[in-house]
């Protein structure tokens, strides 16, 4: 008896591979996005980070996800990509 095939339960997708951008050698003249995911005290960490970055000559822009429990809205991601060169996302827990 021929063995029956199995049906694939997965998404059957092949992840597209993207090469990461090279890290900038210097932050001079670059705009850095700081993304707050709305976890308690994430802002404390980002405030401190912002001070350090500005001292190194970077311009800093602050962004905030509406809630930590959902992915960043696509408009927010687009806004960051449009306005900044580098992004730092503060995770928590």
């Amino acid at each position, binding site marked *: 008896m021929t063995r*029956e*095939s*199995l*049906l694939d*339960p*997965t*998404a059957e997708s092949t992840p597209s591979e993207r090469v990461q951008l090279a890290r900038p050698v210097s932050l001079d003249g670059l705009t850095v996005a700081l993304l707050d995911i709305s976890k308690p005290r994430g802002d404390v960490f980002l405030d401190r980070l912002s001070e350090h970055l500005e001292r190194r000559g970077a311009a800093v822009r602050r962004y905030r996800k509406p809630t930590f*429990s959902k992915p960043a809205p696509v408009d927010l991601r687009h806004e960051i990509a449009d306005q900044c060169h580098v992004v730092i996302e503060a995770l928590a*827990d």
Partner: protein
Amino acid sequence: MGAPRLPVGLVAVVKHDCATCQTVAPVLLELARRTDLTVYCQDDPEFPAGLEVTDDTDLAVSWHHSIETVPTLIAVGSDGERERTVGWSIEQWRRITGLDDLAGDLDIPSQRPGCGSLSVDPDLIDELRVRHSGSTLRARRLDLAEMEDEFEYMHRVGWSDGLPLVPPTESRVLAMLEGTTRSPEELVAVVPPDLVDATVEKVAISAVMAGCRPEHLPWVLTAVEAACNDEFNMHGLLATTMPVGPVIICSGPGTRDIGMDPGVNALGQGNRASLSIGRALQLLVRNLGGGRPGGVDRATHGNPGKISFCFAEHSGPFGSLSSSRSDLDESVDAVTVFAGEGPRCIVDQLSREPESLATSLAENLRMMHHHKLAMAFDAVLVLGPEHLRVFTDAGWDRSRITEELMSRLQLPYDDIVRGASGIAEGIPAGLGLDTLPKFQPGGLMLAHAGGGAGLFSMLIAGWVNGDTGSKPVTRAVQY
């Protein structure tokens, strides 16, 4: 493969291994002489002898033209089938053929019931479904080597939640799809975290793997729709470090029809419908959505209910959780999905007055997650029948019980502020409040399940509630 068209004229479908077909063999010979007759035989291309017979031993014609009984006589016009009769009835055959004297010279009974068609033989139907309908499925086929252990294979490729799976063969998936009227390619939901379109077919594959029967599929489909949306936020529920998963609470008469049991051990092991429906949702999120422990699932501890957590509620005057939080009538089959952790027992074997029991339950509810945290988490309190009776005997209904519990869950702010009792955890200082309720309005939900003996209730603690986290979702089961 498309359905083979029937030739214009008369069509008879017969099988040799059928006494009625043998009885009508001379009638078919007569019809062949007098009309434009095509005979299909299911088991013997030489039967009936003396006729030119079309071989239907692959049962393609029988399958596609829904032959359930042999003989079946069909009148076919240029626009397709016009009418049919099954078995042998001289009256019906004369009417369909238009021959008033058909079989007038034959010494046979005037009627005789037919036999079962091979195309509906229970031993053949799964194989036939694959042969004649399998090509309608779109999922990738995976062929295993002859000697490969399929159970080990499914573990190895990462499909399993840790327990053995039912291999999702075409025949099993097609049989599963018989449980719904929805088409296999219909979109059910977009499944996180990878945001993949879940078709009815993909849900059916998960249902097979989980151990469901076809009659469970509508419940699985509804649970998937209820869980995979922005409101319920299955993505966040998966990604959180808290030990929570989708808890599926089922109600309506259909729960009994599919074998769910709201009685003894309602939240426990041993009930196929409950366990496999809950597991099917989790397997879909795992395999289609790509949500796996250590990947997007970041749970610190998890809980055993993340394999499956699904149960049915008792019916009765207390009503169901689903009907209490929607406009669905009690008689409508429905599911409510709740982002919850494992259940915890609240014991009170001495309270016989509702006030005592309400206070007792409230004191335990206050401890949920942390006795100094409030408002951020919802809960489902599953009242056991013996606890519920204490309330209903006193005339307390669902809303009265909820109000009485909530009134006992106003937490003094000074007791729960950060630092109080020497405990850093708590509510931020400086809010200027006297009290804070443990639960947000609507955040304490009541369900009714469990065996008839035992003065216990079960607390299912929730995850972050509201827009920040997850809201319970109630949906009517779509059949």
